[in-house]
């Protein structure tokens, strides 16, 4: 266990140093993402200025949603950026390097890349929560824990959809779309979605576990829902690991030559 922690730590540290070797690009990526996220908050501010509350839902509520989502996605692409470039690396046969080394391939692939823009997201998320949501110390603790859980689910989702590259050549575009879909649904109020769509959002596209449940837990802690969140986290990790493992077996059986050729 300690070995895994040391291993991950060494990689994160190395990735940071690589990123800082190109300081201008690093800050530009961070700034860019902060601007990008800020625009969305401006949109919601405009909206809620005109319509102060829609069915009891107001500006502060969407701010909390954004703080969790931005932090979760930021940490996901920052610490586990390899999960998001998996599809293209599979297509280019870059897995071979990791197959000859002793660490679990999926872990290694995931920590080996860092998208520096993620730090802009995370910075934004934390700042917005600290300054716009007026949190109490308990809120802050809950925020940190829930964000980390949301991060885990986002990473698992990214691994699962990127692993589709083991089966289709269109996986890069497809996984971009699916990740965009998750972000979009997660950053809108849960109440907007009902019926079949809601079922989807608690299963295939887990916006419910990334955003809805964490946000409701931040408003009011409930042990029942906390357990559901935990189950969802374990479930999404299982799906990710299973999808990748089955896909990797397919890769090693050489059945991807149609794409590799």
């Amino acid at each position, binding site marked *: 266990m300690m070995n895994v922690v040391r291993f991950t730590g060494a990689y994160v540290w190395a990735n940071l140093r690589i990123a800082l070797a190109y300081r201008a690009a690093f800050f530009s990526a961070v700034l860019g993402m902060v601007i990008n996220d800020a*625009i969305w908050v401006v949109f919601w501010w*405009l909206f809620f200025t005109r*319509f102060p509350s829609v069915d009891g839902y107001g500006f502060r509520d969407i701010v909390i949603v954004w703080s969790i989502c931005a932090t979760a996605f930021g940490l996901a692409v920052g610490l586990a950026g390899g999960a998001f470039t998996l599809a293209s690396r599979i297509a280019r046969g870059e897995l071979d390097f990791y197959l000859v080394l002793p660490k679990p391939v999926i872990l290694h692939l995931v920590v080996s890349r860092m998208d520096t823009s993620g730090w802009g997201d995370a910075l934004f998320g934390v700042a917005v929560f600290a300054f716009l949501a007026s949190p109490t110390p308990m809120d802050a603790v809950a925020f940190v824990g829930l964000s980390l859980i949301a991060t885990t689910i986002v990473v698992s989702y990214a691994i699962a959809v990127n692993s589709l590259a083991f089966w289709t050549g269109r996986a890069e575009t497809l996984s971009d779309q699916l990740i965009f879909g998750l972000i979009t649904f997660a950053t809108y109020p849960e109440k907007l*979605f009902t019926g079949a769509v809601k079922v989807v959002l608690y299963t295939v596209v887990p916006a419910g576990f990334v955003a809805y449940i964490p946000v409701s837990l931040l408003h009011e802690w409930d042990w029942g829902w906390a357990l559901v969140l935990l189950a969802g986290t374990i479930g999404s990790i299982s799906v990710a690991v299973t999808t990748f493992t089955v896909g990797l077996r397919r890769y090693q059986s050489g059945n991807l030559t149609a794409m590799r050729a």
Partner: protein
Amino acid sequence: MTSVRGRGGRGVVGIAAYRMRVIQAYFVVHLRDQMAYLGEVALGGIILAVLLFVLTQLWQATFRFQGADTLGGYTLAQVIWYLVLTEAFITSRVAFARKIDTDVRTGDLAYALVRPGGYVSAHFGAYLAERLVRFAFALLVGGVFALLSVGPIPVGPVPLLVGLAASLVAMLLDFVMVLGIGLGAFWIEDTSSIYLIYTRVSMILGGLLIPIDLFPDTVGAIARALPFAAMIHGPARLVLSSGLADVSGLFTMLGGSLALAGGLVWWEYGVARRRVTAQGG
């Protein structure tokens, strides 16, 4: 903008006609290119459908909660069709600022300027091809979505055509501004942040997700003073309205912005060319 030497002194009209032919040539080539990637374009429709779906849910809830038939003069159906039009304009954007930036930074610009046909014309032809294909596709996807969710709305043929014309002018303006950003690579370390700010600010102040008529007064005034509203909000509103009330204002804003931006970028391009040829690339 290409050298006029050796053209037999054809004069301004001759050069313009020549440039048109260049644009057309690049347009046709890139059009065929776009068709080859229809599969990828189709997948891009998923993102648009998701966005429109989520926004529709939002506005339906808003209308329901406000208990009103119209908000800011728009019915729900009109808001949805408004979103279809503005989203079509935005999602069809072609991000070629990076290409220009790279050309400048690597010095390829020097080679490109020597190539016959004109650097700008070539890029414009390519831009137009990609832009129009994606615009048409986005209108198709958005249109189908809107038909299924809120049904058709009455649209006068004249406002429709005029609105489309305004969109085309807006696309030209967008091209000029993005070209200007890309050329900024001569002076600015990182143009991608500038480009990002441009896209984001135009989305907000252009009324992408909320019609500007629903903005708070001060923000609305700021938005109307800027060209983005004329590029995104203006044409959409024109198509949806029953008359041509604001046409002159819209085209004045578009035309004026085009003249201003065009002048600035022409000057910028001239400076860039001089720097490139002086330094030998």
